[in-house]
C-alpha cells in the first residue's frame, strides 16, 4: 500500500497498521485494509460546501457528493460508474431518437411521415421506460460503488456499495441521513470469498450542517470512515 501522498495534519499510519500492510503475516486472510480514520484532509485543501438548509434534496445531494468525493480518492476506492453510464446511455439514446423523429416529421409531409414517426415514438417510449425501470429497480438508492485491488501474496479485490436515504423530520427528531454500506472482499477473481459486511447508520443533518448551511466535511468524513471501517472489519479475528 503506497504511503498517502498528501500532507496530513500530523497523522501518520500507526506502527501496527504499517505491519499489517507490509509483511505477510501468519494468516493473510486476516489482514485488514488501512483504517480510513487517519486520512482527513487539512481544512485549507477543501472547497467549502454551502447549501440551502431548508431544502432536503440539497442536503442529501451535498452528503452524497461528499461520500463520492471522499471514497473515490486515489488512495481509497476507485469508483465504478456503471449505473451512471447506463443512465446516460439510455437517456441520450432516447434524446437522439426523439430529435431524429421530430426532424423527420418536420422535413417529410404528414401523411407520408406517419409510419416512421410511429416507430420513433414507440422506441422513445421504450427507452424512457427502460431508463425509469433501471433507475428504480437496479440502481435504487445507491450512491457510490467502489472497487479496490490490493496485492498480498494474491490479488485481493474489495467491492463496496453505499446507498443513502433521507428520513424527513418528525416532531422530536431533525431530518436525518442514513447510509447503508455493503462490503465484499474476495480473491482469485471473485471465486473465494474472504469477507463480507453490511452496516447501516443514520445521523441527523444537524450534525453536519450549521445554521448557515456550511457543511462540516471533516466530521462527515470521519463518520463515513467509521462506517466503512465497521463494515470492512474482519469478523473472524
Amino acid at each position, binding site marked *: 500500500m503506497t504511503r498517502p501522498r498528501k500532507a496530513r495534519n500530523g497523522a501518520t499510519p500507526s506502527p501496527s497498521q504499517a505491519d499489517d500492510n507490509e509483511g505477510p503475516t501468519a494468516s493473510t486472510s486476516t489482514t485488514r485494509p488501512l483504517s480510513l480514520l487517519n486520512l482527513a484532509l487539512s481544512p485549507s485543501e477543501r472547497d467549502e460546501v454551502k447549501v440551502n438548509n431548508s431544502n432536503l434534496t440539497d442536503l442529501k445531494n451535498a452528503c452524497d457528493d461528499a461520500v463520492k468525493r471522499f471514497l473515490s480518492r486515489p488512495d481509497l476506492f476507485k469508483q465504478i460508474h456503471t449505473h451512471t453510464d447506463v443512465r*446516460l446511455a439510455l*437517456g441520450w439514446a432516447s434524446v437522439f431518437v*426523439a430529435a431524429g*423523429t*421530430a426532424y423527420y416529421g418536420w422535413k417529410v409531409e404528414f401523411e407520408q411521415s406517419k409510419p416512421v414517426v410511429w416507430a420513433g415514438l414507440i422506441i422513445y417510449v421504450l427507452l424512457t421506460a427502460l431508463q425509469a425501470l433501471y433507475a428504480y429497480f437496479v440502481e435504487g438508492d445507491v450512491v457510490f460503488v467502489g472497487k479496490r485491488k490490493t496485492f498480498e501474496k494474491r490479488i485481493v479485490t474489495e467491492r463496496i456499495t453505499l446507498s443513502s436515504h433521507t428520513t424527513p423530520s418528525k416532531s422530536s427528531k431533525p431530518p436525518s441521513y442514513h447510509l447503508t454500506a455493503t462490503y465484499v472482499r474476495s480473491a482469485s477473481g471473485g471465486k473465494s470469498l474472504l469477507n463480507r459486511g453490511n452496516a447501516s447508520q443514520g445521523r441527523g443533518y444537524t450534525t453536519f450542517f450549521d445554521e448557515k448551511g456550511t457543511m462540516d466535511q471533516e466530521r462527515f468524513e470521519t463518520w463515513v470512515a467509521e462506517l466503512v471501517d465497521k463494515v470492512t472489519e474482519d469478523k473472524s479475528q
Partner: protein
Amino acid sequence: MFAEELKTIRRLGIRHVLLQLLNFASVIASGLMIWKGLGLITNSESPIVVVLSGSMEPAFYRGDLLFLTNPANVPYHTGDITVYKVPGGQIPIVHRVLETRGVVRRASSSAKKAAAKGLADEGKEGAVLRTQPEAEVEQLLLTKGDNNHIDDIDLYEGLEWLERRHVVGKVRGFLPYIGYVTIAMNDFPKLKYALLGILGLVALVQRE
C-alpha cells in the same frame, strides 16, 4: 455566479456535466415526442392552433387556442369548423364549412362508387354516409368565415373546392386567451429566446 458553477463542475467531473445536459435535453425531447404523439393520435398535422384573425367572431376571437382532430374516413358536415391550409398559402385558416360535395366509395367495389358519386349534402347524405363505416370518403368543401361577407373562393388560390387533404382538422374544443402567449412569442422573437434560455438555465442548475 459562474465561478461557483465552474468550481462545482470541476469537482464533480464530466459525467455530472453530461447528466445535467441530459436533464435539459430530455425535457425538450419529451416535449417534442408529446407533440408528435398528439399529432399521430388525432391524425392531424398540428392538433393545437391559435386563432390569428377575427374572421370567426363571435365564435372565436384572436388569441383563442383551438383543439383539432382529423378522423380519417369520417366525412365533414356543413357547420363543422375546419382549419385548412391552401397549397401555396402562408398560414392555416379557420373557417366554417358551407357546402360539401361527397364521394363515398367502398375500398373493394367500383360499381358502388359510380352510384354514390355526386351526392350533395342536404341532410340525407349524412344518413347515407354514416351507414357505410368501411367507406373511403373523398370530399370537396367550401368554407366561409362567420364574420366575413363572402365565402372563401378568393382564398383558394385558383381552386374551386377544398379537398380533404388540405384540411388540417376539425375544431373539437377551445380555450380563450391562452393563444396570446404564442402570438407574443411570434411578434417578439427575443421573448422566445429569453424563455428558452431561462428554461435551460433552470434545468442545468437544478439537480433531481
